[in-house]
C-alpha cells in the first residue's frame, strides 16, 4: 500500500492507473516526423539542469507533482542491494528543518495524497493536491533534494519495515520467488539480475551511511526530472520552479555505467516446487532490446509483436492455448521498451485444472517457434497497430498517466519528442519489421524458462 516498489519494467505492478498500463509499457525512442500528438506537454529546463515537463489537464482543480531521479536499484554499489529503495523510504524521515514524518503530515494537512516508488532505473516521488497547494508541495520536495537528515533512530526501524515489505512481496509467495530467481538467471552480469528491493542479507547490512552516500552521489537537480500534470500551465509553474528548485546548485553526478551482459550460450531452466503451489504455471523470458539499448531499432516492432501474440482474448496465444486447444486458463506475453539498458520479452501460460504443465509449455513453445519461423500477417499487424494507437487516446484520460509516461521516458534515455511521436512510430511499423524483430529476439540461448510446480505428493 505505501511506498510501493515499481517492480521491473515488464511488470507494471504499481497501482499507478490501470488504464495507463497498456500505454505506459509502450511509448518510444528513435527519430521520425511528428504528426499525432499524445499529451502536448510544455517543457523547459532550469539553469541548474532540472528538466521540467508540464501537461495541462483541466478536468478538476487538482495537480499531480512528480519528481523523478535518474537513479535506481541498478545503480547501487555491489553488496548494497536495496539501497535505492531504502533511501526512497527514508526520504520521508526529515530534513534540516522538518522532523521525521512531518513531510507527510504537511501533505495530509493540505489535503494531499503522496507516495513514492523505486525501480531499476529511476526513483520517483509524487503528490496530488488541489492546485492552490502546489507551492507547498514544491517547497518541501525541493527541500528534501538536498537537506535530508537521518539518524539511526529513524533508519533502523525503517529497515525492519522494508524487510517486512520484502516478506510481503516475495518471501510469502512462491510466484514472486520464482520471478526473482528467473530475473537473477536471465541477466548473468547486468545488475537487473538483483532484486529492486534487495537480497535479504544485504538489506540487513544497509544503514544510515550507505543511504546517505547514495543520496549525496545521485540526488541533484541536474539528475532529476520534474513533471507536473493537471490544472496548471508552464507559465504558471515556471516562477515556482525557479523559486524552489532553481536555487539548488548543480552537482557532479556519476555517469550511469552498468556491467554489460556477455554473450549467452545456453538456455536456462529454473524450477520452483512448493507445497504452496496449487496451480502450476510456466513463463519464458527472452532478453530483448529497449529504446535505449543495442537493438533499439526493434523496439516498436516488438510492441506490435507483443500485441499480436499476447494482447488480450483474441491474441494468438490466448486463442490457441486457451480457446482452441483448451489446454490453458491463461496465456499471454508482455514486453516493455522503456529501460535504460536491456529489457525482456516474456511469455506465460497456466494449465487448466487436470492438465499437466508439459503439454501447455509445449504448446506455448510451438506458438513462439511458429511466429519466429513463419512470421505475422499484414492483417494482424494492421489490427495490432490500430489497438495500440487507440491506447494513446485513452492515455490522455487520467491525470497520472502523462507524468508516469514522461517520467519513465526521461529517466531511461528517451525524450519528450519520443513520447509524442509514439503513435506515428507505431503506425510506421511493417510486417517485415515485426518478423525481423521476432527472429532477432526469440533466441533460445538468450532465454530462461521458469516453472512453478506443486510439491509432488509423497
Amino acid at each position, binding site marked *: *500500500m*505505501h511506498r510501493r516498489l515499481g517492480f521491473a519494467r515488464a511488470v507494471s505492478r504499481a497501482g499507478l492507473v490501470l*488504464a495507463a498500463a497498456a500505454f505506459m509499457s509502450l511509448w518510444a525512442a528513435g527519430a521520425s516526423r511528428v504528426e499525432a500528438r499524445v499529451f502536448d506537454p510544455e517543457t523547459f529546463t532550469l539553469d541548474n539542469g532540472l528538466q521540467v515537463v508540464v501537461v495541462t489537464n*483541466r*478536468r*478538476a*482543480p*487538482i495537480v*499531480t507533482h512528480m519528481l523523478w531521479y535518474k537513479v535506481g536499484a541498478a545503480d547501487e554499489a555491489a553488496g548494497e542491494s536495496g539501497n535505492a529503495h531504502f533511501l526512497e523510504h527514508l526520504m520521508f524521515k526529515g530534513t534540516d528543518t*522538518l522532523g521525521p*514524518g*512531518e513531510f*507527510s*503530515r*504537511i501533505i*495530509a*494537512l493540505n*489535503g*494531499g*495524497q503522496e507516495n513514492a516508488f523505486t525501480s531499476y532505473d529511476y526513483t520517483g516521488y509524487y503528490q496530488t*493536491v*488541489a492546485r*492552490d*497547494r502546489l507551492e*507547498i508541495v514544491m517547497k518541501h520536495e525541493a527541500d528534501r533534494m538536498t537537506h535530508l537528515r537521518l539518524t539511526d533512530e529513524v533508519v*533502523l*526501524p525503517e*529497515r*525492519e*519495515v*522494508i524487510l*517486512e515489505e520484502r516478506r*510481503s512481496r516475495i*518471501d*510469502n509467495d512462491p510466484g514472486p520467488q520464482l520471478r526473482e530467481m528467473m530475473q537473477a538467471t536471465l541477466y548473468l552480469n547486468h545488475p537487473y539480475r538483483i532484486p529492486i528491493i534487495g537480497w535479504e542479507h544485504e538489506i540487513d547490512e544497509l544503514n544510515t551511511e550507505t543511504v546517505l552516500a547514495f543520496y549525496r552521489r545521485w540526488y541533484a537537480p541536474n539528475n532529476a526530472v520534474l513533471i507536473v500534470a493537471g490544472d496548471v500551465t508552464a507559465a504558471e509553474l515556471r516562477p515556482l520552479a525557479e523559486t524552489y528548485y532553481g536555487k539548488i546548485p548543480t552537482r557532479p553526478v556519476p555517469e550511469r555505467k552498468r556491467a554489460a551482459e556477455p554473450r549467452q550460450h545456453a538456455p536456462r531452466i529454473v524450477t520452483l516446487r512448493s*507445497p*504452496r*503451489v*496449487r*496451480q502450476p504455471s510456466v513463463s519464458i523470458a527472452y532478453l530483448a532490446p529497449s529504446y535505449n539499448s543495442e537493438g533499439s531499432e526493434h523496439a516498436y516492432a516488438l510492441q506490435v509483436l507483443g500485441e499480436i501474440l499476447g*494482447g*488480450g482474448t*483474441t491474441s494468438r496465444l490466448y*486463442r490457441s492455448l486457451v*480457446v482452441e486447444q*483448451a489446454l490453458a*486458463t*491463461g496465456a499471454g506475453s508482455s514486453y516493455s521498451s522503456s529501460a535504460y539498458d536491456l529489457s525482456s520479452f516474456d511469455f506465460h501460460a*497456466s494449465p*487448466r*485444472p487436470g492438465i499437466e504443465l508439459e503439454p501447455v509449455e509445449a504448446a506455448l513453445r510451438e506458438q513462439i517457434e511458429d511466429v519466429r519461423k513463419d512470421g505475422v500477417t499484414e492483417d494482424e499487424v494492421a*489490427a495490432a497497430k*490500430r489497438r495500440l494507437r487507440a*491506447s494513446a*487516446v*485513452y492515455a*490522455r*484520460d*487520467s491525470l*497520472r498517466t502523462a507524468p508516469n509516461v514522461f517520467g519513465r521516458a526521461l529517466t531511461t534515455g528517451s525524450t519528450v519528442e519520443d513520447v509524442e511521436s509514439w503513435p506515428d512510430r507505431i503506425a510506421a511499423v511493417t510486417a517485415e519489421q515485426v518478423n525481423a524483430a521476432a527472429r532477432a529476439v526469440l533466441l533460445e540461448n538468450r532465454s530462461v524458462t521458469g516453472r512453478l510446480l506443486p510439491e509432488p505428493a509423497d
Partner: protein
Amino acid sequence: MMLRSAFIALFLLLAAASPAAAIEVQRVVSPGGIEAWLVEDHSNPIISLDMTFRGGAALDPVGKEGLANLVSGLIDEGAGDLDSQAFQGRLQDLSIGLSFSTGLDTFSGDLKTLTENRDTAFELLRLALNEARFDEEPIARIRSQILAGLARDSENPRVIVRRTLNKMLFPEHAYGRPVSGTTESVTGLTVKDLRRFTAERFARDVLVVGVVGDITAKDLARLLDETFLGLPATAAPVDLTDTTPSGKGGVVVVEKDLPQSVVVFGHEGIERADPDYYTAYVVNYILGGGGFSSRLYKEIREKRGLAYSVYTYLNPLDRAALVVGGVATQNERVSESLDLIRAEWRRMAEDGPSEEELRDAKIYLTGSFPLRFSSSGRISGMLIGMQLNYLGIDYLDRRNALIEAVTLDDARRVARRLYDADKLTVIVVGRPEGVTATRPAPELKS
C-alpha cells in the same frame, strides 16, 4: 516550521473553492424512463459508463455459490449472433473495454469507448445484458479459470485470512460465503442456472447508471433506451435478511508454513445510512485509515518497524456493517503487534481522538476529496456509489460539509460506540509465535 505549515494549510483551506465546483452532475432520464447520472466532459473523445444491478453474490442460492461470479465472466463471451471470439474480436478491434464483476451486493459492468465507436459499444453492452449465449466452449473455459483461481486462492494467505474472517463473522449468513464459490458449487453450475440468473437479476428497477465523458444528455437518453429498455421492468424478489456480525471475538490461527503471518481482524461497524457514518469515517481515518499519519501507522510501522502495511476501514454492506483491519508481520512479532493494535483499539474507544487529530483529519478528508476526480472511470464509479447509497445528486457539493460538521463530542461518542477490542475476531494465517488460538479454524471448502 511545522506550526507555520499547518497555519498556511488552514488559511488556504478557507480560501479554497468548493471541491466539486468543476464537476456538474446531470440527471438524464430517457423517454423510456431509464435514469443515468452524467458528467459531460468533451476534452477527450472518450466515454466511460458504469452500471450496476443491486443484488450480488449474496443472493446466490445455497449450493450454487459462485453463480453471479460465473455469469459476470460469461456474458461478454458471446451474445446475439456473435460467438465468443466474434464478440471479443469486436471489442478488441474497436478498443472497447467491457467487463463485468460481482460483489456481495452488486453486479456491475464497466464500459469504456472512444467516441467514434460509441454506438457499437452500447450495442455490445445491450447484447451482453439481454442476449448472452452461454455457449459450451466459453462456459468450460471460464469455469476452468475460476476453478484454477480457487485452487490458487486455497494457498494464498491473503485470501485464506479474508475468507476465514467472513466465515467467522457471518457463520449463518450469505455474507459468510465466498463470492467466487467453491470447487464443488462452481462445478455444479448449469446453463439453466446462468439463464435463470440473468432473467431474474438483470432488471430496470435495480439498475443504476453513471456516465462520464464525451457525450451529451440528449445522445445518452437515446442510447439508454436502446441499451436498457429491453430488460424486464422488475427483478425477482430477494430473500436476504439483515444481520449482525458475530461479536464473539477471539483468535483463530490457520497454520501455514510462511515467514510472515497475515492478520485481519474485525467486528460490527456502522451502516452507510446511519447518521453517525461520517463521524465514524473520520474516526477510522485517525485510527487506521489511509495516509501516513494514523495511530496504527505510527505505532506499528513508524515507531517499531513491525509491518509494511497496517490499516483499518469501514465496510458497510447492504445487510450488515463491519469495521475491518489488517497487518502482516514476521511470525515472531505477531503477538506484540496484536497487543499494540488492541491497545489502540481500546484507547480510541475510551478517549476518542484529540482535538488536534480531529482537526487534522477533517482538513485531510475535505481537502483530498477533489483528488477523486482524476479520471473518467473514477468519476463514473463515484456516480454509481452515490446512487447505490442514496446520497443525492448534489452529494458532491454537500459531502465536505458532512465531514466538517463532525464535532469532538460526536467523535468520542461514536468511537465508544464503534470500537470494542473484546469483540474483535482476529484471524492469523502463518506460524505466529506466542499467539494462542481461542477458537478453532473453520473448515474452508476451496
